Every structure is written in structure tokens, then in C-alpha cells.
């Protein structure tokens, strides 16, 4: 399956785009998505390790399945306020 991952802040700036599409197995989990993201975009390696993955606007645990995920986002450490 193809999953689009929304990018923000330095991830968006580094890649020059606000999302990337990843090719994942049909039963892929959040952990698999992390691996694929770093594999396809090695420049994000350090940032991904420090980031959360949000699935449908909720922080997701690494073992969560992405099969039913509608919206996936990479959430680097936040700095609002």
C-alpha cells in the first residue's frame, strides 16, 4: 500500500516538500513506516529517531498497524507556545 506521510518544520524544509509517499506492506506498522522513511530519505535519520508518528491526528505507538490509517504525519519535537 502507499501511505502519504505529512511533513512539518525541519523535515519539510530538509526535503523541500510537505509530504512523501511511502510504499509499505499491507500489514505495515508504525515501526515499518519509520524504517521505510529513513530508508527512502536517509537525511531524515536523526530527526525520525527523535520524532513521533501521528496516525489520524493521534500519537501512535510503534506496533500500531497502518492498514486503516487515513492520515499519517511525522511529528518532530514540538516548540509551540
Amino acid at each position, binding site marked *: 500500500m502507499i501511505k502519504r506521510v*505529512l511533513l*512539518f*518544520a*525541519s523535515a*519539510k*524544509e530538509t526535503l523541500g516538500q510537505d509530504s512523501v509517499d511511502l510504499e509499505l506492506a499491507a500489514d505495515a506498522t508504525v515501526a515499518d513506516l519509520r524504517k521505510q522513511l529513513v530508508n527512502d530519505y536517509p537525511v531524515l535519520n536523526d*530527526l525520525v*529517531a*527523535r*520524532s*513521533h508518528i*501521528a496516525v489520524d*491526528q*493521534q*500519537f501512535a*505507538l510503534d506496533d500500531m498497524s497502518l492498514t486503516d490509517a487515513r*492520515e499519517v*504525519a511525522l*511529528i*518532530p*519535537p*514540538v*516548540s*509551540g*507556545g
Partner: protein
Amino acid sequence: MISITDKPIDSTAVLASVSDPDCGANVLFVGTTRRMTGQRETTRLEYECYEAMAVSKMESLVALAHEQWPIAKVSIVHRVGVVEIETASIAVAVSSPHRSASFEAASWLLERLKQEVPVWKREIWADGQEEWVHPETGGLPELPERDPSEASP
């Protein structure tokens, strides 16, 4: 009132939005762009957010605050885009019958908001450097969902 805006924040309106005849205490926090960080000078900040999730997270935090304190109304407005020195990037207002609840809830909301609401700032320094701020967390921070204090609202 929970919102993200790219316009200047009207903090008077944010405070007025929590006004309630049965509340004697109204606390407003306004976060502004600070010029100096130690000896280093900031020219301006630029904020970006993941709006749908940011609003959803702020709503969850407000619900959690209502569970913890006898507060009446809460408003949070976060600005995105360029925020100049001495200009508001965030306003949080809380009303309650008595003042300790408003102070505690407002302080707690800011604390949690800075940890888990998906908003990011880009710091434009006077020395010409620019950088997105991604605070060091010593590795992947604990997921908020694992925090037992975060019950479903």
C-alpha cells in the same frame, strides 16, 4: 474558543471569551517573542503547525483541565506565521470561581501544550542564522498516550 490564526492575536477578546458571572477569577497568559536568549538576539519567530491535530490536541488538553480543576471556561489561540519581537504567539485564558484553579490550570495547559501540541517555531537570529526549534528530548520522548494522567476526555 480554541483556534489557530495567522492574524495578530486579540488578547482582550481571548480574555473576554472566558468571562462568566459565576467566576471571580480570570487568568490570561500571553506568550510573546522574546528578543534575548542569553546573549543571543532574536529577530523574529516563524510558527507553523499541523492544524487539525493541533486543534484536536488543544481540545483534549482543555477537557483534561476541566477534569482536574473546577474551571468554567478556557480559550486558547495560537498564531502561525511571522511573529515579531514583543508580539503574541499564544494566548491562554481560564476562568473559575476562585483563583487558584485558574492559575494552576493555565500554567498546566501551557506546560502540556509546549510538550505535545504540534506547533513548531523557526528562530531567525540577528546574527543571520535560522533554525527550526526541535528541543532535545534525550531520545524519543515518552508517548503522551502512555501517560496514565491522560485519560480519554
